[in-house]
């Protein structure tokens, strides 16, 4: 057995870095903190790669399956004898894979930020927050139990909040960060309730015992029912609610486009590559339960994923802010992953969807980070987010152009780039499972190609725009990560995921299904072609199209008015319909009752002052009547 206990340092190092930079960075070495943070991350990236290597290639498999290795575990908080929150490191294929993804993208983003954030106020704060995020995200994926996951789940939420609101003097950034936090918090409520229901029935938080296919949790969990569904299904639906929030699935997706107010490297890291896939990771982590004990919940996962992906893809076609396009694209792609999980079964080839999902997660992290960083470079050059203010940038930004093109081709699923492989697996899995979902995803593939190339053509080709300052290529700290990620996007498709990351840890055989692959490439090319026609050169056709489908366009452009619904719920319902009445009730009913007691007392006091009339004879009268009344009372009435 290989000793993995050093892996505890993978999350801890960024944590200490955060404390260190957070407390001391501002005063003592504001300039150096970027380098320090990057170095720290470089170390853990190396550690992660070593771990991945050791785990996948040197650790012995038992019974042909990768083992779940608890590299480190300590009790953090004891609830009851059985229920306790542990903090530890759990290594299994998906967590190791996530280690690689997170550290890679994070390192790239760190390096990129050295250039991108240079000279910004709060440079050291930015790196401190990045470290905090890295710590939280690593803690999340390495969690040994669901409660640890929840802890880090919250922590990534807050790091996301802090980073979205990095430009805290910008009202839109503040609003966006608030919205992101509250929406995900609401979703996390479901997660927490799910955990509670789960733990109440299984009496454990521990992943290994929870997800053991022959363990009590799964075998007994489907029994007890509530409202027609088994308790386990309920708990999994609630848990999934957390995933929906974090992964920006419909209907909790509304925070994601706004989150683009954050600095672009942050969008790349958190809102494209890592944090937003936490929901996918969560479902994958709990996959045996979903697949074996809560199939209804798994179906919900599939449909939510499918709906989100097409929903987002449609919106993405109409947006003009490049980051927003990318954000919806992210949502759409995560929908893919969710769908893949949803259509997967457990074990062997049945688990194709699971593998495909993880595969897509991996490749998506590469190319989406690349897209965002590329977008960052563009924004860096033109100081605007809007496609309408760009055009013909290929001349000014050659490296960005090339890498961006690679990324676009990848996401469009053009072979032999990585996106092709992973998307193909997903479509294959969907086809085997559910034709409707397959059709949806097939359409989404076309839409994806279309809107990505719409973006690409608008920015790098299209009309010649006059710029105030001539755009120039980003510095090396920014271009190097682009190149590295581009290489990654190209190559990662060849990683044999079916050997490494599978639903039951055992390798299975899967081949490229040409029946799926060819049509998907074709529809990708179709999308690219339409985009080429419409956006390669300045043309009036898009506007005409938009005018033709006025209402649908308007709906899509306004994101189907989801933000308005959100506003309605928060402002009108929560604030006007609940909070203000509660506050009013508190002041005017509850408090007023207390005050009324006081004023009634005083009122009575005022009313009865006539008794004390100062008239001696009235005193005597009261005296006599008092005595007589008492006598009557005790002689006749109350003896």
């Amino acid at each position, binding site marked *: 057995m290989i000793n993995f206990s050093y892996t505890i340092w993978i999350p801890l190092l960024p944590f200490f870095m955060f404390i260190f930079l957070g407390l001391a960075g501002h005063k003592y070495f504001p300039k150096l903190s970027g380098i320090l943070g990057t170095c720290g991350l470089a170390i853990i990236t190396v550690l992660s790669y070593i771990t991945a290597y050791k785990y996948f290639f040197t650790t012995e498999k038992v019974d042909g399956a990768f083992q779940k290795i608890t590299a480190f575990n300590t009790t953090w*908080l004891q*609830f009851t004898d059985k229920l306790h929150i542990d903090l530890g490191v759990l290594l299994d294929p998906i967590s190791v894979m996530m280690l690689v993804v997170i550290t890679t993208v994070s390192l790239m983003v760190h390096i990129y930020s050295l250039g991108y954030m240079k000279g910004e106020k709060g440079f050291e704060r930015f790196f401190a927050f990045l470290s905090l995020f890295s710590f939280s995200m690593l803690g999340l994926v390495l969690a040994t139990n669901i409660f640890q996951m929840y802890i880090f789940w919250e922590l990534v939420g807050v790091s996301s909040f802090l980073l979205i609101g990095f430009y805290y*003097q910008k009202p839109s950034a*503040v609003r966006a960060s608030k919205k992101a936090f*509250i929406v995900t918090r609401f979703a996390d409520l479901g997660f927490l309730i799910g955990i509670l*229901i789960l*733990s109440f029935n299984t009496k454990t938080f521990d992943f290994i015992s929870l997800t053991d296919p022959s363990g009590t949790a799964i075998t007994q969990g489907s029994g007890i029912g509530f409202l027609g569904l088994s308790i386990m299904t309920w708990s999994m639906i609630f848990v999934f609610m957390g995933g929906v929030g974090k992964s920006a699935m419909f209907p909790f997706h509304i925070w994601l486009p706004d989150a683009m107010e954050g600095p672009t490297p942050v969008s790349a890291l958190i809102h494209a590559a890592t944090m937003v896939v936490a929901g996918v990771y969560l479902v994958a982590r709990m996959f045996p339960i979903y697949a074996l004990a809560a199939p209804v919940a798994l179906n919900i996962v599939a449909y939510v994923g499918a709906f989100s992906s097409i929903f987002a893809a449609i919106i993405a076609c109409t947006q003009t802010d490049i980051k927003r396009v990318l954000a919806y694209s992210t949502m759409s792609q995560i929908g893919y992953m969710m769908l893949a999980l949803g259509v997967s079964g457990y074990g062997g080839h049945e688990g194709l969807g699971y593998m495909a999902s993880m595969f897509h997660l991996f490749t998506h992290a590469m190319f989406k980070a690349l897209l965002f960083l590329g977008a960052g470079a563009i924004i860096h050059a033109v100081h605007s987010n809007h496609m309408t203010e760009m055009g013909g940038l290929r001349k000014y930004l050659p490296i960005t152009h090339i890498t961006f093109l690679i990324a676009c081709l990848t996401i469009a699923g053009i072979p032999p780039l990585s996106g092709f492989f992973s998307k193909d697996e997903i479509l294959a899995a969907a086809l085997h499972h559910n034709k409707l979902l397959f059709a949806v995803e097939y359409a989404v593939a076309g839409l994806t190609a279309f809107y990505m190339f719409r973006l690409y053509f608008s920015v790098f080709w299209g009309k010649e725009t006059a710029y105030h300052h001539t755009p120039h290529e980003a510095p090396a700290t920014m271009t190097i990560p682009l190149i590295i990620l581009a290489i990654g996007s190209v190559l990662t498709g060849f990683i044999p995921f079916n050997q490494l990351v599978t639903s039951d840890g055992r390798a299975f055989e899967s081949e490229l299904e040409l029946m799926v692959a060819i049509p998907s490439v074709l529809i990708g090319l179709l999308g690219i072609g339409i985009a080429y026609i419409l956006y390669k050169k300045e043309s009036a056709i898009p506007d005409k199209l938009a005018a033709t489908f006025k209402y649908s366009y308007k709906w899509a452009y306004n994101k189907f008015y989801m933000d308005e619904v959100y506003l309605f719920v928060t402002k009108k319902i929560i604030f006007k319909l609940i909070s203000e009445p*509660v506050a009013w009730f508190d002041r005017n009913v509850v408090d007023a009752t207390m005050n009324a007691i006081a004023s009634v007392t005083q009122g009575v006091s005022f009313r009865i002052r006539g008794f004390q009339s100062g008239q001696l004879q009235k005193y005597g009268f009261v005296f006599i009547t008092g005595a007589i009344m008492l006598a009557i009372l005790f002689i006749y009435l109350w003896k």
Partner: protein
Amino acid sequence: MDILSLFVLIPVLTITGILLLKDARQVRLVAIFGMSLQLIMAAVLVFLYLSARHSGNTDEMLFVKDYLWFKSLNIHYAVGVDGISVALISLTSIVVFAGLFASWEVEYLKKEFFISLILLATGVFGFFISIDLFTMFLFYELAVIPMYLLIGIWGTGPKEYSAMKLTLMLMGGSALLLLGILGIYFNSAPNGGRLTFNILEISKVVIPISAQRIFFPLTFIGFGVLGALFPFHTWSPDGHASAPTAVSMLHAGVLMKLGGYGAFRVAIFLMPQAAKELSWIFIILTSISVVYGAFGAIAQKDLKYINAYSSVSHCGLVLFAVLMMNKTAMNGAIIQMISHGLMTALFFALIGMLYGRTHTRMINQMGGLMKVIPFLSVCYVIAGLASLGLPGLSGFVAEMTIFVGAFQHPELFYRIVTILAISSIVITAVYILRVIAVLLLGPTTNEHFEHLPDAKWFEKISVVTLIGSVAAIGLAPFWLSSMIGTSLQPIVDRIVALNPF
């Protein structure tokens, strides 16, 4: 002299010292000296306690001292602590310590201010060390009454009204409590023998269930008033809003904890059967407190009101958890008391400091303070995050323990109510973020705010002490949790023995 009585003696000596001072300038030095000593004593107590436990002492209460006081009524001055009291004593020392630094700049009737403040602390310390109901009650009232002067003299806004309301409502609570205590006393020897006020002795017998049914609600509501139980919480917003900084800190941070502690130690521990029988009523009330307080906070504009309603919500959670009557939930309740004590004290300290600079507490009149006074603002954010239950800070530990514990309740009704209570964490997030967003973030709206000074050294001490404690509990909750848990065991055993589920 036993170590526990020192906790009463040191404040008394400090007060005497302040009284004897001729020079008003040294008042705060003496006060801080005394309370620092108290803080050290608290640390020593924790150490002694843990080492005694470590060496195998399994008594329910440690360091028990018992002096006969009123022989004919069997009233004793009896002190003793278990892990719960030790934790709360530590909390009190920390908050008092921070409170003194937060009131560094009090100038008006300085001497009297510090005396009242420490007197208040004396009551609280006394309450936590007492194991005799009479002394407990004595200290309880002793803690309440200085509030009147503290708010009335040094407060702001409609201070006289608030002070009066607060005092009268709390005394109303203690009136019910008195009745409850008498009821317990006269039923403390159902099998004959000597009546007693001693909690430990009473816990060895079973109070007749008919008596429990009467006196449990009285005692629980009595303590509940101080613990801001709906609908007896309305003193809290007004009181906190009018109180000077340190008083809000102490009051919300410590005094409200007397309610939870008492409800737990007296009402439920001594009368578990009635507690179980009637808990559904109070569960409903407390869960209303939890949700209602949070919603109430959303609609407020005054920072202190927001925090007061937030306290209603959080303290409601304490009582809620206590009523669940299992070890985990109760453990959570105690941690929540400590956690809420620390972070609400932190909040009030910060609000006081902000008010001292901006002269307003209306959030809509402020904005963009982060840029101007980053230290205080960051601290405010941390406090807010603690309040909304961010992992790594104490609020999370407390809330999760409560929720997990409460959810272990075997009856479905309780679990559903728990889910309702859990929903408060979202509402909490809403109002906390709203405040942070409006108050600290965004552009600096008011030009007068451009040149506000950031925290002074004494303010930093105050704030850092509290944040340090919040973070310490949040990062390493296991020792606190196990210290409390060990002490809870006999209590829960008794409850379970009397209430087989």
